[in-house]
């Protein structure tokens, strides 16, 4: 409860600060071009639920600033890529970069990955008698999700948490039922840390779960965890904070147990190898001892040439405005929701991708 209040207060403070910022920037805009076409109207997107909190917050502030309604339908990254590829939405959103075969299936144009923010995937549990800060490593988390650890006082958990009193209640696993980038990131972490997981289950946007209840979206998993005593699931940090979930401290590459926080998420974004198409993954990649291991960037997907993919020029311009907002003011809003802004170098690369978008070959710049 205390924590929720803190974020609310933070949000309120941030909103005030941002209100001032928004005034400033709209003044600037008024002095420049007076084209009304790209303002107002709607654009629609669909995809990941991992960044849904921050995207919806952005959408609501973006509307105040530009008058454009962003209808974001949080149907999971799999759905986001699918709807993007089918051309039913103006932009897609995914937490795990598109796979080569998914890129090949996108025939409407060249997909561009625009990273927006970093978030942490928490291991959240609802076990009466068990506070936050349970120490877990990748292998143990994988054993939980394999169904091998059936009770909360299992020796494997005990060994990692000497001195902690563990209740003997049953473990109930909650996982995603939809195709999810969160799942892809989470399972690739498990795969790296547990050979049995790698051979039996593997990593993908959806896997053949050995056990557990499926729920739709990060919110669905959060809802199911909240409903069930003894439950453990994986959700983005904003969801964990909002529901006041107990979250586990997870062992990172440097051997440290790290709690998911804004700082540890930011740390996870440092020192990464970024390929030119920005399709990178930050899972367990940072050697920083302060880095939270299951943290990653999330992406917006657009076509390099939206107009050739069937979007009108005005709409394409609105989408570019939206992306510019995400890389601009949006970066300042993100921390209020416990998402980390992009590190400077990556941010430059992302902005360059947005600036490189065209309409029938002609460049589209921010309004």
């Amino acid at each position, binding site marked *: 409860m205390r924590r929720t209040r803190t974020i609310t207060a933070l949000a309120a403070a941030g909103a005030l600060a941002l209100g001032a910022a928004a005034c400033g920037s709209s003044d600037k805009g008024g002095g420049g071009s007076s084209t009304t076409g790209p303002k107002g109207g709607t654009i629609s997107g669909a995809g990941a639920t991992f960044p849904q909190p921050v995207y919806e917050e952005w959408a609501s502030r973006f509307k105040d600033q530009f008058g454009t309604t962003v209808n974001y339908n949080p149907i999971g990254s799999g759905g986001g890529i*699918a709807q993007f590829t089918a051309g039913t939405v103006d932009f897609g959103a995914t937490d795990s970069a598109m796979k080569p075969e998914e890129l090949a299936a996108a025939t409407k144009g060249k997909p561009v990955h625009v990273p927006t923010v970093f978030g942490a995937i928490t291991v959240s549990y609802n076990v009466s008698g068990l506070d936050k800060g349970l120490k877990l490593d990748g292998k143990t988390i994988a054993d939980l999700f394999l169904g091998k650890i059936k009770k909360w006082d299992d020796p494997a958990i005990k060994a990692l948490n000497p001195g902690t009193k563990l209740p003997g209640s049953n473990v109930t696993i909650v996982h995603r039922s*939809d195709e999810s980038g969160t799942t892809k990131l989470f399972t690739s972490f498990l795969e790296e840390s547990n050979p049995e997981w790698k051979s039996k289950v*593997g990593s993908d946007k959806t896997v*053949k779960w050995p056990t557990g209840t499926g729920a739709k979206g990060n919110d669905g998993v959060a809802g199911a965890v909240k409903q069930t005593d003894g439950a453990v699931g994986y959700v983005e940090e904003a969801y964990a904070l909002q529901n006041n979930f107990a979250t586990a401290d997870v062992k990172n590459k440097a051997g440290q147990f790290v709690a998911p926080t804004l700082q540890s998420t930011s740390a996870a974004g440092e020192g990464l190898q970024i390929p030119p198409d920005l399709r990178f993954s930050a899972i367990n990649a940072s050697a920083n001892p302060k880095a939270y291991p299951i943290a990653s960037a999330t992406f917006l997907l657009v076509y390099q040439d939206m107009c050739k993919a069937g979007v009108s020029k005005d709409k394409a311009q609105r989408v570019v405005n939206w992306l510019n907002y995400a890389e601009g003011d949006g970066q300042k809003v993100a921390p209020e929701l416990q998402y980390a802004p992009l590190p400077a170098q990556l941010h430059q690369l992302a902005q360059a991708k947005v600036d490189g978008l065209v309409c029938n070959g002609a460049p589209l710049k921010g309004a």
Partner: protein
Amino acid sequence: MEAGAVTATGGGRSILERPPLSRLPDRLLRWGLTALAAGVLALIAYFFLRLYNDAHPAFARFGVLDFVFRNNWDVSQEVFHALPLVVGTLITSVIALAIGVPVAVATALYVTELCPPRFRGPLTLMVELLAAVPSVVYGLWGFFFLVPKLRPAEQWFSDNLGFLPFVGGPVAGPSYFIAGLILAIMILPIVSAISREVMATVPAEHREAALALGATRWEMIRMAVLPYSRAGIAGAAMLGLGRAIGETIAVTIVIGNAPTIGHQIFDQGYTLAAVIANEFGEAASVPIHRAALIAAALVLFVLTLVVNLAARYFVRRGERIG
């Protein structure tokens, strides 16, 4: 029904013959309505062909029988064998019928035969109110009320009656049983309403004859009402079954979304309809996944066809006996 042929034959205008102009609207109406009926057939034909056509890649890759009868629904590997979904659909529907139909028929009997006339209206209304509650509201209620409140009872049942088949072991929150129970509540009004209508058509003489012979109320029900309305009740149950098989949203919320075959009725599962609702937004760009979901829809469609055939068979047999 050849009432249109009332016109007199032969030459000259008979009194009965209508002026030719007034026959034109009749023709138009007749052809219009026939075209409408034919249109609906065409629509259904297109519907079926389109589904079959779009499902074909899945059947071609996995084989029809393997698609339906093998147990492996693995989206990430793009392997689609729908047995867990078919089994989930059947289990939840069977639970729904086992709980829902007896209660519905008993309610119908009570309302038509036993209860004081002044309660008849209100009782009917209340049962019909159940039909006014949408699927998604049942899901909402099931998720926030049934799942948590019934869990201790289910665990007790599972611990103490483990000797029963398909009972025993840890209880998941969302489960086949919860889904079946919600389906039972959902089919109750329709099964009850149709049973009631059928019972209302039992000729009063049959009832009176039974009572005049000295039958008790229950004997009258057994001798006069039930035999006469058996066909209708079977039809009602079949309709309920059709609804249960295809019910999507409420089930999606409380089934647990696990594409595996549970070992017991308190395990999580999946149904054909729920899998379509959950996955068809994601399948737009993966042709084989989309085909598999459409194939699942086709299997659902065929299941309802079979249920329909069975309903007709029961009704016919019932008619012959009754």
